[in-house]
């Protein structure tokens, strides 16, 4: 049995506090849907009554990056759009998370050409990848639950685990 010291008590308290904060955060996701393309249709389907994303506490889209904490990047990102996406990401306050919704945001999909960014993780960090062209609503909800787990486990400071950079040659 460990000795009860002031230090240990503080540690235990902050751990509980972290958990409580994580719990609160994961059920009050204010999402910014950055909808560009086809995936937006499935995003709509997920958000509406049939699949009801509100059950997961993520039913309230915010169209101001200042008020949002999860950025849903929904649809192909072209090179013309990339700077705008990055600016919106930068405008969001910490803690923030990014969901790559659909295969175009994950890898560029089958638009491997001059116009398209081959995966948004080449321009910004990503927390959850939801592949599919477009992903079915069930898949989106699965991704959302994985994101909730991730939010639960994250530190109070909101510091993101830096993902490994992708190789340049893709």
């Amino acid at each position: 049995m460990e000795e009860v010291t002031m230090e240990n008590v503080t540690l235990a308290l902050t751990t509980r506090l972290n958990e409580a904060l994580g719990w609160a955060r994961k059920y009050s996701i204010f999402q910014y849907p950055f909808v560009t393309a086809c995936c937006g249709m499935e995003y709509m389907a997920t958000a509406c009554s049939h699949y009801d994303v509100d059950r997961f506490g993520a039913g309230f889209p915010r169209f101001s990056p200042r008020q949002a904490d999860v950025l849903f990047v929904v649809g192909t990102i072209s090179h013309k759009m990339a700077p705008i996406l990055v600016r919106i990401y930068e405008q969001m306050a910490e803690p923030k998370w990014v969901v790559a919704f659909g295969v175009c945001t994950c890898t560029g999909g089958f638009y491997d050409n001059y116009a398209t960014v081959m995966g948004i993780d080449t321009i910004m960090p990503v927390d959850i990848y939801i592949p599919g062209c477009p992903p079915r609503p069930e898949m989106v909800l699965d991704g959302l639950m994985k994101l909730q787990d991730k939010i639960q486990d994250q530190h109070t400071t909101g510091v993101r685990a830096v993902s490994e950079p992708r190789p340049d040659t893709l």
Partner: protein
Amino acid sequence: MSTSSLIESVADRFPTAVSASHTYRGDATVVLRHESLLEVARFLKEDPALQMDFLMDLTAVDYSTFGKQPAPAFFSSSGVAVTPSSQIPDDDPWPGPPGRSRFAVVYHFFSTAHKHRLRLVVPVEETALELDSLTGLWLGANWLEREVWDMFGIGFRGHPDLRRILMYEGFEGHPMRKDYPVKKRQPLIPALPTETTPAVETTATVETVESGLAAIETRDMLLNIGPAHPAMHGIIRIVAKLDGEEIVDADVEIGYLHRGFEKMAEIVDYNGVIPYTDRLNYVSPLINNQGYCMAVEKLLGISVPERCHYVRVIMSEISRITDHLTCVGATAMELGAFTVFLYMIKAREYLWDLVEKVTGARMTVSYCRVGGVKADLPEDFAEPCQKAFKETRKVIAESDALLTRNRIFKDRMTGTGVISAEDAISYGITGPFLRASGPAYDVRKDCPYAVYDRLPFDVPVGSHGDNMDRYLVRMEEMEQSMRIVEAALRDIPPGGVLVNMETGRPIPAAEMVDLGKVGNITAITDSRAVVGPTLEGADRARYPSIATDEKRAFLPPKEDAYGNIEGLMQQFKLVMFGHGVRVPEGEVYFPVEGANGELGFYVVSDGAGSAYRVRVRPPCFAIMSAVGSVLTGESMADMTPTFGSVNMIGGELDR
């Protein structure tokens, strides 16, 4: 007017200007010297016998590598390029690209009065990349010419505002040229974006307005709406110059979802383009599928069985309903009627369930194939269809009750976003947006394709050309589409559905492959392959009703692919890299009625395994080019319903 007399009337009037002419697959084409373009175009528009009031499409083709694509070794030895089948007599073969010039600018004209079409091809030398602009004759030429400049680098004399449209400032080169590498990217970041200069005057003007009380100093304000804006379902940017609440001038910037559809279509084989067409107008992908497949079929000279036409029509009309539901729902949501949006998406889910039953996917379906469809309708499809329509009708009635006589909705929709019929035609606008202004142009009625001439439906038209009329037209079109589907399900000729599936010994596909490998063909003959759910409805017994009998265009049923050497060869020749469907040299334009208007596919082939050029005439491109002028003079708040009624679909607009 017949195609030959159409060509004659142009050639007689301008004997020196017309350098060649031909009719290929029913498309009249006139090749023109560039000096007389403006003169001929004016004649086409103003001559009472021609009355070409629509400039449907304007695009270019880079002929520099025409016929130079290396033929794969396998292929050249076997030489099975598809020659046109006997269905269409080919007494007038395609004479080849127009002249030796590198580029050709292609104009497609249409007359609503006489229902005839004419293609004008103007060769452009690489040394003199300039043509006269048609912006003085058709307002819609403005954006179309900008796109040709952006993609091909061909300039237009007299164009008021020739700058890039789909790509961005600072992009070097012209991506649709054959020598632009498909993967040559020019990213804008990490460097911050260069601000594109808006076309409207950026200098604020200060003027003094004499009002009743005292002189008030007013100042124009520039407001940037988009690309990421809550009232924009889709990414475009409108730079609005405001005087108080009033929009004085508006510049619309598009291209944020340009993802190189046309370039990709030149790389993949003919059937490989179908998934890309799904993602053009992703709210009604089945119509895109149908349009593209029918264009390639026209070029091949083949036709599909009647049942297949019916299946395509049924699926297209279901798609049209989903498209209108999304458009009306989103418009209502942006005006604050969130309930309607929820209802309409609910109805869309019922229809998507239908689509899923048939195609296996909810929205990106890739259901059509060149020469047929992937699989037949499931058995007793009419029953779930009736159920879904019953729910949809209920939703439409509910939404109608919530919106049509709703004071707030009416006030915001009536009299806003007005466009006259003349302007709409001049911009090349088609579909519900045009019909709300009066003209009843509908491709399904005026240039019937598939089996639309046999199905009963009405074309609703408006009279004011405002947002309210567009909303009403769309609401009525949904009902008409359901009517079409119900009639089609009643009239559809029996096919696979009535085939007795019990005949033929069922053998799992994997087992059949093993039997075939050891040469045990007799065990497979007269048997039926048990395939996965994605190929359900594609049995050998159903093939005659869903696919063309042209073996060089359509995959064999799995029973043949596994069971005999001819089937195996056919499968092999169609799926191996460098083989696939071979389309004879030629060019065709084929229009279908998309959810937003005339959706045309212009396909040029040089006989190789992939298309030489695939051009889409995107219906909402024309509408978006008009939005700037429609918004001018309106109040800021009217932008939301107007933009909603455009039904801008990024995939189709920017391709």
